[in-house]
């Protein structure tokens, strides 16, 4: 089934078309959500809400953009809503707290798994540091950066999702990288040297 057929059959309430849509685009949606919320279970929950919304509002889709663009937009909005709603529940740990936990790594060099464990912990900490740095970006910079890095979208594709000009997207990503670098350097200077 091509895109037009999927949309046509979905509007008729065809479950097969919905299954095809989900199978074709679930990785895209989950990946986008994961890039923003950094947790696979939450990303899958949000992705399900995205597809439910698509199922409910397919009659409103006029086909002016690609299905993928529409899905990206809903995924981004749902993810941001989720982050906003869960901000209070999340216990904020600063980047420095994450670094302090590095100092508690057991230094049992006689443990044959010591180096693997240490590397695993270090990778996990790098991931936490990166997520916090990305989460600290202004909203639009975060969206543009995530779509570019996690979904490999071009500036043009991002501009269609975010309804901005290509030059605006370019500027957003440039500033996002600059801000990320600043945060990561500050952390590195204070904690890892």
């Amino acid at each position, binding site marked *: 089934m091509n895109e037009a057929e999927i949309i046509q059959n979905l509007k008729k309430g065809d479950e097969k078309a919905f299954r095809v849509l989900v199978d074709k685009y679930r990785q895209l949606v989950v990946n986008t959500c994961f890039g923003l919320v950094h947790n696979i279970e939450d990303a899958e929950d949000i992705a*399900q809400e995205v597809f439910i919304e698509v199922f409910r509002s397919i009659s409103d889709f006029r086909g002016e953009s690609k299905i993928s663009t529409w899905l990206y937009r809903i995924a981004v909005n749902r993810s941001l809503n989720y982050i906003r709603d869960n901000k209070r529940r999340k216990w904020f740990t600063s980047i420095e707290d994450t670094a302090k936990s590095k100092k508690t790594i057991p230094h049992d060099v006689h443990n044959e798994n010591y180096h693997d464990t240490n590397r695993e912990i270090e990778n996990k900490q*790098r991931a936490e540091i990166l997520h916090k740095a990305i989460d600290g970006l202004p909203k639009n910079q975060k969206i543009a950066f995530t779509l570019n890095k996690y979904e490999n979208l071009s500036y043009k594709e991002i501009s269609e999702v975010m309804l901005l000009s290509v030059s605006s997207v370019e500027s957003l990503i440039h500033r996002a990288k600059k801000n990320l670098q600043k945060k990561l350097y500050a952390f590195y200077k204070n904690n890892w040297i």
Partner: protein
Amino acid sequence: MKCKKIHNKLIFFLDGDLSSNEEKQIKDHLTECPDCAAFADHLKKTLNVIQSEKSPEVNPFFYTRLKAKIEDQAAASQKLHSWISLEKILQPVFFTLLLTAGIYAGYKVAEPENAQVDQLSYNEDQIIPYLDEMQVETIETFLMDE
């Protein structure tokens, strides 16, 4: 190139966003400056986390759970609709009863009192003279007494 300038451009260098001239300058600096090289290595490893996180494995039961969720929501929505239609009947009945009760209460409050008192019915003329003694004694009589 000074270290501070290098640090500001490192992320763009790692992403391949710089001109070849700038790239060469940074590469040369990194070979000479161990501090900048260490930070560049740290930055590279941190950004590489994105590559390892891309396209996480999706739960194989994703569609099954999704379908179950849609069916649950449809059932809940149907239940809500039946409550709403019941409400459409109950609400007018309730307000009609309330209005009737209000009218009846208002009628009862406004009903005139039946004040028939047989034993002590005072005539107005009999009371006032005791209150207003000027009626009994004229002013001339009053002044002449003084």
